[in-house]
């Protein structure tokens, strides 16, 4: 295998044994990017300076978890003095005056931050086609979308353009692209990772999380990014653990629920068969598998399409052309500056969601829509809590299909439906991981979603690690 194909822990092993050097690793990934980036288009910005900084300090940092490891960052995660555009024209030239907490943590862990990845504008979308700049292509088939909104991060990992990446997940934006690109993606329990410096989309749903080549790397990245942060008032104290201790092949006695209502939905038969076959493997390995009943995911999706846009309409009010970002040149007075800046700067999906959110929050409709959605959210959360009283994990597909072809979904509702299995997790605030469980007849990866209770990341990692060993897919790479 080439260096760029290796996982974080494999690269660390080689570094520790003196079989490679940081300089060689940097060069291997830089060469790989030069060779395939024209096809994949994962990156909005490459950050050689940032990578060089920690590469030079390798000797003093070499015991840190990510010393010498090339990591990519989604472009809605603030990097000081490095462009953070959220793939929007509004922030096209924005260079944050501070680092997000996760970037500080990666830096402290010795990571080489090699670039900022493409995404749907402000993380609104499921295919990365809403980027204001260009599409990203799925490394497994360049005519297909990488998923979204963290499509650039997932594609970069799958293409060997970085060892691992960070994404953000509001309704599936880490897990769905991980599924489409055949890599591992984890959305942690709400509050586990500081959102300080994550450009806000829907604040009560957003979480930053890792996208990696295997489960062990996922545990390593999770170790680095979790922890309380006084700069994020929704951050949770005293819950982070050393997740590497869950890297055990053992699911004996683990109780796994299969939600009948989810599997009864109309979706791709190959996906369904592949996920159920993987569940059988977990059962053979000693897990107890039972059917469970849960609120239909369609209600969670309906609640999401009120809560998400409502919070977004409020969060995106800050883009007014005053303090940073785009300012329209067509401005006679301050009011026309606001209108023109926002109308020129935002793309179609962002404007649509702002209008939806503003309507849902407007006088006379607040109770009917936003409050109603928040109440349904309680029902969905309670339902997950009820199941987790008796079960360790729930298994579903990550997405109803494998990666869609680029340019094939223009109807917003149809596109929203690709998030049907991932959205309920954000609504309930629980953690969930997507891991590869097979390939369809077109050789496109299929993802399986493992859902745990609040703060149940450890159980998820343990079951995922076991399944990964059984299925033995983790060394399969896209050919480019």
């Amino acid at each position: 295998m080439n260096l760029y194909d290796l996982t974080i822990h494999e690269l660390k092993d080689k570094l520790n044994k003196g079989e490679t050097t940081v300089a060689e690793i940097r060069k291997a990934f830089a060469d790989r990017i030069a060779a395939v980036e024209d096809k994949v288009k994962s990156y909005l910005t490459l950050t050689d300076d940032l990578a060089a900084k920690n590469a030079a300090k390798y000797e003093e940092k070499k015991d840190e978890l990510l010393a010498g490891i090339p990591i990519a960052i989604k472009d809605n995660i603030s990097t000081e003095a490095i462009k953070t555009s959220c793939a929007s024209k509004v922030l096209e030239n924005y260079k944050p005056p501070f680092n997000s907490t996760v970037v500080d943590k990666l830096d402290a862990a010795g990571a080489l931050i090699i670039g900022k990845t493409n995404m749907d504008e402000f993380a609104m979308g499921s295919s990365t086609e809403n980027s204001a700049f260009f599409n990203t292509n799925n490394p497994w088939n360049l005519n297909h979308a990488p998923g979204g909104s963290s499509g650039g991060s997932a594609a970069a990992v799958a293409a060997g353009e970085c060892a691992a990446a960070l994404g953000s997940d509001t309704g599936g934006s880490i897990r769905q692209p991980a599924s489409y690109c055949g890599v591992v993606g984890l959305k942690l329990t709400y509050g586990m990772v500081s959102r300080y410096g994550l450009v806000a989309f829907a604040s009560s749903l957003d979480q930053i999380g890792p996208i990696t080549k295997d489960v062990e790397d996922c545990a390593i990245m999770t170790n680095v990014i979790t922890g309380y942060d006084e700069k994020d008032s929704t951050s949770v104290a005293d819950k982070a653990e050393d997740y590497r201790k869950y890297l055990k092949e053992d699911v004996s006695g683990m109780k796994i629920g299969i939600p009948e209502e989810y599997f009864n939905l109309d979706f791709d038969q190959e996906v369904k068969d592949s996920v159920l076959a993987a569940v059988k493997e977990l059962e053979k390995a000693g897990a107890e598998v039972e059917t469970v009943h849960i609120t239909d995911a369609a209600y969670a999706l309906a609640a999401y399409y009120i809560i998400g846009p409502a919070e977004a309409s409020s969060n995106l009010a800050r883009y007014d052309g005053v303090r940073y970002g785009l300012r329209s040149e067509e401005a006679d007075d301050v009011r026309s500056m606001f209108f023109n800046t926002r109308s020129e700067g935002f793309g179609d999906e962002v404007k649509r969601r702002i209008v939806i959110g503003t309507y849902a929050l407007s006088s006379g409709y607040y109770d009917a829509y936003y409050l109603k959605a928040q109440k349904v959210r309680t029902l969905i959360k309670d339902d997950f809590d009820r199941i987790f009283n008796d079960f360790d994990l729930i298994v579903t597909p990550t997405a109803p299909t494998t990666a869609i072809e680029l340019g094939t979904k223009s109807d917003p509702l149809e596109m929203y439906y690709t998030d049907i299995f991932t959205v309920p997790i954000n609504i309930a605030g629980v953690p969930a991981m997507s891991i590869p469980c097979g390939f369809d007849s077109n050789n496109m990866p299929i993802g399986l979603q493992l859902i745990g209770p609040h703060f149940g990341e450890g159980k998820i990692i343990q079951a995922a690690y076991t399944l990964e060993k059984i299925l033995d897919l983790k060394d399969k790479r896209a050919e480019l």
Partner: protein
Amino acid sequence: MIDKKDVEYSADLAHLKLSEEEKELYTEQIAKIFDYVEKLNELDTEDVVPTAYTVPMKNVMREDKVEESLDREKSLANAPDKKEGQFRVPKIMSE
């Protein structure tokens, strides 16, 4: 049912200027989305307490002491227009 007037009104509240085509398209698409959202009314939520955040927390306070904050130069670094250490905007009142 949401109509074009609602879209125009909401866009105005959100300081968005929409073209005629955008208004037509959004009205049609958003009507479909709200049609789907009607599903929520199938669930009885009469006595349900709304959830804003899924991890329960009370007001989060810190000690009231002055800490370092972003300096003026950095704060203004991304400003589209500035003057004498302040953000500058076009005129607020019309003549």
